[in-house]
């Protein structure tokens, strides 16, 4: 899940889509409009974001609406924070080891 999140975030178009959705729910066509690429290409990016569960799709009649789901972002942020804490702890342990010598 974390991998899917990180891969989803590794692309500027997908990050731009997320930023747009951070402002609120939007129609697929409106999300796609600012990008100088085909609707089909944007749709592929959106599908990746849906697979990563960063974006939810709601269908109303003929309209497809997209919304941001920030939960996986929290997970990624937690993971980074945990890694950081662990390395900081290890650097402190090194000092202890050297002091004991």
């Amino acid at each position, binding site marked *: 899940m974390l991998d899917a999140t990180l891969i989803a975030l590794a692309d500027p178009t997908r990050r731009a889509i*997320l*930023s747009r959705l951070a402002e609120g729910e939007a129609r697929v066509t409106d999300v796609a409009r600012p990008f100088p690429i085909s609707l089909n290409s944007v749709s592929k990016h959106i599908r990746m974001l849906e697979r990563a569960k960063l974006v939810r799709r709601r269908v109303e009649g003929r309209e497809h609406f997209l919304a941001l789901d920030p939960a996986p972002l929290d997970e990624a942020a937690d993971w980074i924070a945990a890694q950081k804490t662990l*390395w900081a702890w290890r650097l402190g342990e*090194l000092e202890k080891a*050297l002091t004991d010598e």
Partner: protein
Amino acid sequence: MSELKVSHRYPFPPEKVFDAWLDPKVARRFLFATPTGEMIRADVDPRVGGRFIFVDRRPDTGDVEHVGEYVEIDRPRRLVFTFAVPQYDPGNTTVTLTFAPDGDGCVVVLSHAGVLEEWVKQTVQGWTMILASLETALS
């Protein structure tokens, strides 16, 4: 959110702190260690291209093997090695350490990239932007 980077000042000269990373007797006490784990194996071949293996026995997940290779050994300034935890992810990550003299001690800066490389390095800005707009959206 920024790059995964941590630093620590040591009241010891850079040479002493540098050597600790390549000396299994000292390295086993901190490198790849976890607060609740017990290092049951620490083998290092401290030369460029040489490999290491550290096995941390953890109460929750059992034995966790860290394997990697030394990429750059520039005593006492810079040390770069790759590592992976194959049971979790076969992909290599890269740890870069710099040792800068600081009075009678030294400052070590550790940056960890690799799994992160794809996105943290190139996308710190994007990530920051996302989290900022997310905050706006949620507030």
